[in-house]
C-alpha cells in the first residue's frame, strides 16, 4: 500500500514489531540492548533490534532523538519505523544517524498494519508484505 507520508525515505525489510502503546525511547528503551524497560509498557522486554517498529508515536522526553540515534549507532535499533502520526523527534533522530554514521532508518506514516506475522518491506512511498 501507499503510505500517507514519508518522513525519512529509504528501504527496509524485516518483521514488524507492533507496539500497543507509545514508548519513550529515552528512559523506556535500554540503548545498550534495544530492550523495552519501561515497567508501565505492556510489551516490556520486547527487543526493538532489527524490526520494523510500528507505533502510534513516541512518548515523553526530549531525549527521544538522541536515544534513537544511539540505538541505530549500536545496531540495536529498528531498521524502519511506521508511525500513526508524524513525530519530529524520531525524524530528527533518523536524519542525524544518517549524517553521523551513514545509517538509514526510513520512517513513514501509514494506517497501522494489523497484527501480522511475516516479512514487510518499506520502500520509498510503499509499505508491503513481502511475497517470500
Amino acid at each position, binding site marked *: 500500500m501507499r503510505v500517507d*507520508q514519508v*518522513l525519512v525515505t529509504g528501504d527496509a525489510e524485516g518483521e514488524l514489531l507492533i507496539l500497543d502503546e*507509545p514508548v*519513550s525511547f*529515552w*528512559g*523506556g528503551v535500554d*540503548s545498550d540492548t534495544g530492550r523495552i*524497560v*519501561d*515497567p*508501565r509498557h505492556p510489551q516490556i522486554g520486547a527487543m526493538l533490534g532489527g524490526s520494523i517498529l510500528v507505533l*502510534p*508515536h*513516541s*512518548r*515523553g*522526553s*526530549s*531525549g*527521544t*532523538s*538522541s*536515544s534513537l*540515534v*544511539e540505538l541505530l*549507532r549500536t545496531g540495536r535499533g529498528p531498521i524502519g519505523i511506521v508511525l500513526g*502520526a*508524524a513525530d*519530529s*523527534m524520531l*525524524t*530528527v*533522530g533518523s*536524519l*542525524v*544517524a544518517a*549524517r*553521523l*554514521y551513514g545509517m538509514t532508518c526510513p520512517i513513514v506514516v501509514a494506517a497501522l498494519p494489523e497484527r501480522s506475522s511475516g516479512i514487510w518491506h518499506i520502500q520509498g512511498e510503499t509499505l508491503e508484505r513481502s511475497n517470500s
Partner: protein
Amino acid sequence: MFLAETDKVVLGGERGKAAQFGMEMLIAVGESEGARELIDIEQAHIDGCLLHAQALLDFADYLVDGDAAVVVPTTLNVSSLDLLHPDLYRGDAETASQARRLMDAYVEMGCEPTWTCAPYQLASRPSFGQQVAWGESNAIVFANSVLGARTGRYGDFMDICCAITGRAPYTGLHTDEGRLATVQIDLRVDEDILDGEVMYPVLGYLIGRLVGQSVPVITGLDSRASEDRLKALGASAASAGTVGMFHVVGVTPEAGTLNQALGGRSPQRIVTIGLDELDASRAELDHGKGELGAVSVGAPHLSLSEVAEVVNIASGRTTKVPFYLNTSRDILDQAVVSGVDIGLEAFGATVVTDTCTYVTPIMGPVAGDVMTNSGKWAYYAPANLGVDVAFGSLADCVESAVAGHRVTTGPWS
C-alpha cells in the same frame, strides 16, 4: 518551503558546515510537518548536554568541527555532572571526562552554562508571544502553557539546529491554530484536593496518558494552580505523554475562557476526571514498599519558593535519611543571597545543582524506598535507577526525612 535569501546563504554553506546542516534539518523536519516557511526565534534552550549516549558527543564534535555558533541567547539544560559539587558524582572517571567534554562543547558554541531543566525560572525567560526554540519536555510545556511563549516540541539536535540558524519551522505550536485545544479535561474534585499540591502532578500524569499529542484544555482548576503547581502538572504530562502545551481556563494566558482555548470550536473529546481516576493514577506513580531509604525532591529543579518551603518546614530539625534537593545554580545563588542556604545545611540536605539525581549516578545504594514530590522523577526513576518510589507532597517529603519513615498527612496533601 519558501526560504528567505539569508536562509539560502546558510543552506549554501557560507556560514559553515554546522549551520548548513542545521538549515537542512530545519527544512527536512519543517516540510515533514507541513511548514511553508521558517521564522526568527528570539532564544533557545538546549537539551543535548546530558551525556546519555555516545551519539550526543559525536554530534557535538560534528557541530564544533563545523564552526557552530549560536546566533540567539541560548541556555543549557541539565548535564551529567554537578560542577559546583563535583564530589557527588559516583560514576567512573572516563564517563565524567566525556560528560565534561560534551558540556564544554556547547559552551564553546556560545551557550550560557545555566545547566537547568527549569529555564523558565531564570530572569531571561521568554515573555508572552515570543517565538523561541526550546528543548526539554517540561520546559517546552511550561513555556507554551504558562508563559504563552511559542516553541515546538524540540528535542536533542533540533534545538541546537534552531539556535545556530536563529530560525524554526513555522508550524504546530508556533502558530495560532496549532495552539488551540482539541480535548477538554473536565476536572471534578472537592475543594480540599485543589488546595493540596499532590493532585497537580498526578493530574498531569493522567492527562499525559489520555491525550497523546493533542493540546488539552482543563476546566475545574483555579488560581490555586500556582506556577510551581503548573510546573509539576506539565512535567508529568510531558513525561507520561507527548504534551507540548495545555490550557487551564481562567489561569493560563491563552485560556481566558473555554471558548478562547478551543478557538470557538467544540472539543473533539471531553474527558471527565474525578477522584477515582486520580486515585488510580496516584497509585501508578507510588510504588513505595514501606522502609524509607532516601528522599529526592526537585524534578524539575526546585524554585526559590520551594527551596524556602523545605527550609521552613525543616526548621531546626535534621534529616535521618539522605535528602537530595535538586535545583539550579541560579536558584542556589539566590538562596545564598537570601540566607536560605544556611537552613538547608543545618537540615543535612545534599544540594544537587547542574544535574538531577535520576539522570546521573549521585545517590548511593539505597536501602528502602526513595520518596519524591515529583511526578516526573517517580515516572523515570524505577527504570533509570532501579529504585522503588514513594510519592508525596514536598512537605511530606521533608517530614518523612525528619521522622526517618514515611509520613503522610493525607493522600492529597
